[in-house]
């Protein structure tokens, strides 16, 4: 494995219409800490986000550990080695407990770790079972910073850590702890790229970079970090996390189920189920309408991940973000079973399964549409749902087919 943990090779990035970075090069070796500093708007966060493969580039490529992770051609590969990331927004899901969130970070690294000593160091161990929503802004920032450091704390191999203004909102004691951790981890061979205005963190740097020029300096020497994690692979992480987010908030019940049940209620307000028994297509449409409604409401987990840019944090780490696939399939089946009982008074497992598939595929399509606008500055404000009628014709064809079963 290469000793160069991060390479930004001739990257040119636009934000808005203007070019923010032009032909920018940076190389970060094992055991180095580069601190990006300078005025607001010079492109520090842009560099961090480009290194985390969150920002598309006009030119150039980004490599982690010598392997391409993204380039201007649109290629985007999952990094072979996990890396730490703290964005300017915390990237946390408020409904998770501190412990759950940090365990997820460990799971992405494929390792398990005793989190209590770390949480102790930042004065958070007594709150580890609390939901992130119940923490103060400063405490949430600490959780976000710890999330960024964990991949290095767990690993014997060198890891890349990207921190965007980790100091913001931290008290003096936490800044000192952070400095100690950065120095210990750097001396253990991990590398840091940090954007900050806080001159206290400058002491950790092996280089200071003002975007135009890099100035090397002697960093503090100290004992290297020695705590490591134990291997703990978590298969199907995205689906499992989607399930966990759903279970902890019941967001699918709140949004998708409620809408589907309201649709059944509205239809019942118009027709007596027995009075339309001979109109097969109409009845079948009523039976399968709740399953489509689940999809049309959209993937609730994705909506939840928009909080504090958690979706960007996930997109940087993995190629498949947590989702509601499993819930959509199950919800489609259960609600179709329910509407069959209401409108048809009998059960056919084939139609129940088709209801589940309608729920799954329509949720998947909506998610695809939602994620396709993520690059936009105000992705929630874009009228992407205008395109959802594309699902009506296929749904109508399935309804017609179901009458032949």
């Amino acid at each position, binding site marked *: 494995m290469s000793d160069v943990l991060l390479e930004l090779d001739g990257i040119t990035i*636009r*934000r*808005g*219409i*203007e*070019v*923010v970075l032009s032909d920018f090069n940076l190389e970060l070796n094992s055991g180095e800490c580069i601190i990006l500093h300078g005025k607001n*708007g010079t492109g520090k966060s842009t560099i961090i986000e480009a290194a985390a493969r969150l920002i*598309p580039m*006009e030119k150039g490529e980004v490599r982690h550990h010598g392997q391409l992770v993204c380039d201007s051609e649109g290629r985007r590969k999952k990094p072979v080695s996990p890396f730490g990331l703290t964005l300017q927004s915390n990237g946390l899901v408020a409904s998770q407990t501190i412990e759950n969130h940090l365990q997820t970070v460990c799971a992405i690294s494929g390792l398990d770790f005793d989190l209590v000593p770390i949480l102790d160091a930042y004065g958070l161990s007594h709150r580890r079972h609390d939901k992130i929503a119940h923490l103060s802004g400063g405490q949430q920032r600490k959780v976000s910073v710890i999330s960024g450091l964990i991949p290095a704390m767990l690993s014997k191999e060198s890891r890349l850590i990207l921190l965007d203004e980790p100091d913001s909102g931290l008290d003096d004691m936490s800044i000192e702890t952070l400095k100690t951790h950065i120095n210990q981890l750097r001396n253990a061979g991990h590398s840091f790229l940090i954007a900050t205005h806080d001159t206290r963190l400058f002491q950790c740097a092996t280089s200071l970079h003002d975007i135009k020029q890099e100035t090397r300096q002697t960093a503090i020497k100290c004992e290297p970090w020695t705590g490591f994690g134990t291997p703990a692979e978590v298969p199907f992480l995205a689906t499992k996390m989607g399930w966990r987010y759903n279970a902890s908030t019941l967001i699918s019940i709140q949004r998708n189920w409620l809408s589907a049940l309201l649709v059944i209620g509205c239809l019942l307000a118009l027709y007596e189920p027995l009075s339309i028994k001979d109109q097969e297509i109409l009845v079948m449409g009523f039976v399968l309408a709740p399953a489509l409604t689940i999809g049309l409401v959209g993937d609730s987990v994705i909506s939840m991940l928009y909080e504090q840019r958690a979706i960007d944090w996930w997109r940087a780490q993995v190629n498949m973000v947590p989702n509601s696939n499993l819930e959509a399939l199950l919800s489609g089946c259960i609600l179709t079973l329910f509407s069959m009982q209401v409108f048809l008074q009998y059960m056919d497992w084939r139609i129940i399964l088709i209801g589940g598939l309608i729920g799954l595929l329509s949720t998947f399509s909506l998610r695809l549409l939602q994620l*396709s*606008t993520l*690059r*936009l*500055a*105000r992705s929630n*404000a*874009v*009228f*992407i749902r*205008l*395109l959802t*009628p*594309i699902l*009506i*014709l296929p749904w*109508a*064809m399935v309804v*017609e087919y179901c009458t032949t079963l």
Partner: protein
Amino acid sequence: MMRVGHGELLLGTGFLGVMTTLYLALNWAPSVSIDAFASPAAQRIFYWHVPSAWAAFIAFSVLFTGSAMWIFKRSPLGWKLHVAGSEASLACGLMTVWSGCVWGAAEWGTPWDWSDVRLNTFGLLTLLALFLVLGRQSQPDGIESRDTFSTFGLYGFILVPITYVATRIWQIRHPGPVVGGGEDSSLSSDMGLVLLIGAISFTILIAGHIVMSAKITEYEQRLEKLQNHIDGGF
């Protein structure tokens, strides 16, 4: 004295032509056989419906060309064409859908049929244009928004050939082609003349709109640059 540019001239000529088409359609074009349609009088809306659909396809093509030019060449002209094309697609698409719904309500007894492929694909194209226009207004102008909307413009164009062949392959409720569709599609010469005037007028109107819109986009970009300059930004 105010100088009249190409855009204004084309828009004015197109508008006059469209009004002439409307007058001829309602007062001069021959009536159709009362046996051929459930609502023969409503058929006159076809002189508006078909040319506006024709213009919509031109607008969708401009949108596609502009989107492709932006995505592959980063051409500022491409973006102007994308903006103009999406606005023109929306205007013509809405005119087509609205006139189709009016005719459908009179002829079929329902303004819309979700099971008809032509209706669905054309409706989706219009919704795509609406999404592009409203979506663009909801975002600050930038590479991110231009890339995203151009990508939708490119992929959305897949619906154009499907819409075109829809009534030839799956004729469910929408009538087959009135021009170029074989023996069934022959029109009387008077009908054909009104339709031709309509198609030319709508084409000129669309051309005028595209020229004007491109000019407005250019002014907006210049204004944004000047504002950035005043702000001292990058």
